[in-house]
């Protein structure tokens, strides 16, 4: 059977494929950058001192700069401070880690905790070139070596899966438009399976980093990332089965 009339659903699916392909490609690039940062031996450190940091206080450490958002115990909803909050109590995810490496500070009324990227762990004493005061700081790695190794594996798996999904989305999108059996139906099905497997793998890796428990249950990201592959899998093998025959 050589279909002549292309269903509108296939065009819609291919457009969505191209959009998701671009998004996945961008996410893969960010993941690749994070993997590079981890590979070059940069260590995310947690610094804390025994006094308040005022709003706008800046900590310079090994070339990385972090700015403290607020000195009070109240954090603004939706601010970047929410990301390290999950990291400090051991509930980090790759996305939370990404947010934390840019700028992050968690504060309490009595002490200040800074999350910074540094080339070496350091010894604990540090000068503040902006404030001029020398004060004692406790520094410890944000992640243990085991967690760091696990984070590397997690980023590597995520990068590979995002790149693979991006390529599969692109090829299957072309296949939908040309109504090809191999490039459309088979590659589309492979994409759906790979996306679902990588979603589960990503989830499982997160669970291990979290220390065996999930803090937020089933997230919106997981739901949205999971729905499209499931829809693709069902539609390609039922509704559009006979349309992809070239």
């Amino acid at each position, binding site marked *: 059977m050589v279909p002549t009339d292309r269903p509108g659903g296939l065009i*819609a699916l291919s457009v969505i494929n191209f959009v998701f392909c671009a998004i996945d490609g961008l996410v893969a690039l960010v993941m690749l950058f994070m993997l590079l940062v981890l590979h070059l031996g940069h260590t995310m450190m947690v610094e804390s001192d025994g006094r308040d940091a005022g709003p706008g206080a800046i900590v310079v450490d090994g070339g990385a700069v972090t700015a403290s958002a607020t000195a009070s*115990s109240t954090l603004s909803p939706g601010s970047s401070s929410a990301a390290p909050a999950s990291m400090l109590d051991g509930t980090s995810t790759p996305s939370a880690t990404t947010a934390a490496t840019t700028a992050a500070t968690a504060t309490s009324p009595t002490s200040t905790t800074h999350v910074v990227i540094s080339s070496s762990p350091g010894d604990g004493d540090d000068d503040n070139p902006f404030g001029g005061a020398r004060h004692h700081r406790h520094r410890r790695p944000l992640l243990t070596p085991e967690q760091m190794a696990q984070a590397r594996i997690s980023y590597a798996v995520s990068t590979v899966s995002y790149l693979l999904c991006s390529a599969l989305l692109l090829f299957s999108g072309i296949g939908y438009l040309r109504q090809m059996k191999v490039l459309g139906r088979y590659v589309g099905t492979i994409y759906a399976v790979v996306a679902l497997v990588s979603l589960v793998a990503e989830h499982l890796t997160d669970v291990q980093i979290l220390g065996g428990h999930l803090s*937020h249950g089933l997230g919106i990201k997981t739901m949205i990332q999971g729905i499209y592959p499931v829809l693709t899998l069902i539609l390609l093998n039922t509704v559009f089965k006979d349309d992809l025959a070239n």
Partner: protein
Amino acid sequence: MALNLPQLRLFSTTMFTSALRSGPGLLFLISALLLALITASIVLKPLDIVMDEASLHGSSVDPKQAMSSLVSFSTPMVTWLLSDRGDAKAGEPSERATDAQAKRWSAYLMTDQPAPLSAVYLLMCFCLPFLIALGAFDQVSTDIQARRLRFLLPRCSRTTIYIGRACGMLLFIWAALAVVVAVIAVYFACNLSFYPPSQILAWSVRCYLMLLVAAVPSVAACSLISAGIASGFGSLALSNLAFAAVPLVPLIAGAVSGQHWVKAFYWLMPLPFQTQLFHFQPMHVLLAVLGCLAYALVYFAAGLWIFLRRDL
């Protein structure tokens, strides 16, 4: 005018499958899923923030307690949204009765039932016409434009074609809404473990039935517009414009001119009483259901009247 039942079933089935195969049907399904999930995540965001804050300070908060605090904080706003005071002045007996009714109603939605689910379904009820316009705008308009329907006319009556297609589209919308409600129920059941799954399931089923009723007037209005315009894009544009204009024009015109009579435009759609579908009193629900069906009947009859007389 004769209605042939086997042909009607055939048209309905064909419309159902072609709605899924066509771009608009798929767009409706994906848009509805995304809207529902994004709404659900927005509704759960305050709870996430509270839990994050608590873990940041090393303290543990019971999610159920946090949710009840959030519910008690947001209930007055829901009461205000649900209260329809009309022209009653402050302190009048009718105004006091309305306020008491609204308080009881908001307590039913926020306390007796899972509050996040109620919020999501109420918001979906308002957004439903726009979503349905994305999926149901092209029931006959493209075929009228392409003059394809003339091949069917020797064998089928116009009534069968029109009713069959509208029924098929309605069935598709109902099936898509079932998927959306199922996904939402699973999402909340996984995230809000302090609500019993049976309660989430029961309230989801009840809200699904109400959404089915709320969808009927919108599908009938799309049928009317589709029968009147021989262009797929025109039908889409006019459907969305009409669904946006009915609530916005009286609001803006009322604010600008200060005239109360412009509020009568709200009654072009079942907007003024649509929320009563989620009321705690069965009589209110029954009247709202009958009202929605009456609107659908009027739109549907008007569309059929146009379709029977137009050049195909």
